């Protein structure tokens, strides 16, 4: 039930992103494209499970695609050429790590890529903190609640920090053979909040704010 809510929400936000695509700034155009891909991959989850008995393949694909899209969004949002260079390097290094992990550590056909996700989330937290720092360095004379960058960054920070807890809970429950739906609900709640925050980011994004920021 809660999984369906997440899927419907993903669809609505992907739709909003598509409808508002022309009005969006470049980083949020990239985000809108990703939201559509994310929805399609989420929607194909049931089919993948019924075909391959698990969704490990899909999770691996989601992990690498998601990182590349978000890294590109952050690449555009950052002003510092050093941070931009750092992002390019992380994209390359993460790809190498992802391939090693998918081939040897957590085979993509049967194991969920928790290693790659952990690294990915750490990088997201780092990007989010650096972007908040940049926002403080170059404040724009626009109410912060009307700034898409704030909502997007809050979404990423929320998702990546809570994901640690979620993975820790999964490990704990897995190791102790505890039967509980709590992790599933927790996961979906994170997804819902993340989707809502991303939706606000897509809805509040306006080209004028970026122009003001550039001034």
């Amino acid at each position: 039930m809660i999984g369906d809510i997440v899927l419907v929400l993903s669809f609505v936000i992907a739709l909003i992103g598509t409808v508002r695509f022309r009005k969006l700034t470049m980083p949020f155009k990239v985000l809108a494209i990703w939201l559509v891909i994310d929805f399609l991959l989420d929607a194909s989850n049931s089919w993948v499970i019924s075909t391959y008995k698990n969704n490990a393949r899909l999770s691996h694909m989601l992990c690498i695609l998601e990182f590349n899209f978000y890294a590109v969004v952050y690449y555009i949002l950052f002003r510092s050429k050093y941070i931009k260079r750092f992002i390019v390097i992380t994209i390359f290094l993460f790809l190498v790590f992802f391939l090693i992990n998918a081939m040897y550590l957590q085979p993509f056909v049967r194991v969920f890529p928790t290693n790659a996700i952990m690294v990915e989330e750490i990088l997201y937290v780092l990007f989010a903190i650096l972007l908040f720092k940049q926002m403080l360095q170059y404040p724009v004379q626009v109410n912060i609640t009307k700034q898409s960058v704030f909502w997007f960054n809050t979404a990423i920070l929320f998702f990546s920090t809570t994901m640690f807890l979620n993975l820790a809970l999964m490990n704990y429950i897995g190791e102790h053979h505890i039967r509980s739906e709590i992790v599933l609900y927790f996961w979906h709640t994170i997804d819902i909040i993340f989707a809502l925050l991303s939706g606000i980011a897509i809805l509040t994004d306006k080209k004028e704010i970026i122009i003001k920021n550039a001034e």
Partner: protein
Amino acid sequence: MQNDSIPIQADNIDAIVIITGLLLASLVCSIVYFVVLYRNKQLKNKKEQEELEANFRQELLKTQLEVQEQTLNYISSEIHDNITQILSFVKLTLGSIASGIEEGKKAKVIETRELVAQTITDLRDLSKSLSFEHIASQGLIRTIQQETERINKSGLIEVSLEQDGNSYSLGEQRELVLFRIFQETLNNTLKHAGAKHLKIILQYQVDLFNLTLEDDGSGFSAEALENKGGSGLRNIENRAALIGGTATIDSSPGKGCAIKVVLNPLKQQLF
């Protein structure tokens, strides 16, 4: 696997709820803290930007005033040293011509000589009102008085001057700016107001100086001022700000116009 699994215990649920709650609370606190920091930065930035703009405007105005003063001084010295000298020579020549010609023509030459003499006097007065040195040496009240007399003599408008309190020096630069404000107002009144009377009030108090200029002309609405741009009136406000004062303009259609410049004489203002 299903048979080996155990239901989650109450202690575990409590721990999960506490950890999750703490994490979410710290996350929310961090975001709120960031929003507060950001708001403070926005305000600080806005203030700095406004200060920079104000400084820039002041610098620009200062430069404009300096250029204007240089130009006026040049015109003043040209009138005094060149034009009035030539006219004095013309006056002398007319005087010598008058002594050697017949009576009928003599009256006309004398009349012309008197006109030239009047022009010389008027030009000298004008030269004085333009000259920074003259304003600095005579002081604000004396210069305004002379200007008032000059205008009253012309018959264009009736100007009255009132003084309240014992006068004191406001400093050369401030008095010069105040005199230019007076001239700008006088110019506006003559050109646009269609007024018959202009009342000038100078109030000297211990910690307050007040220059009020009131006319009984056609006046104008605030909207008209906005639409026309009102650069002259805005200049008055900017000039007052430059000497650390404030100018208020009060007018409405058919009710004339009152311009009031208030400043604290004890407050030092860099100019």
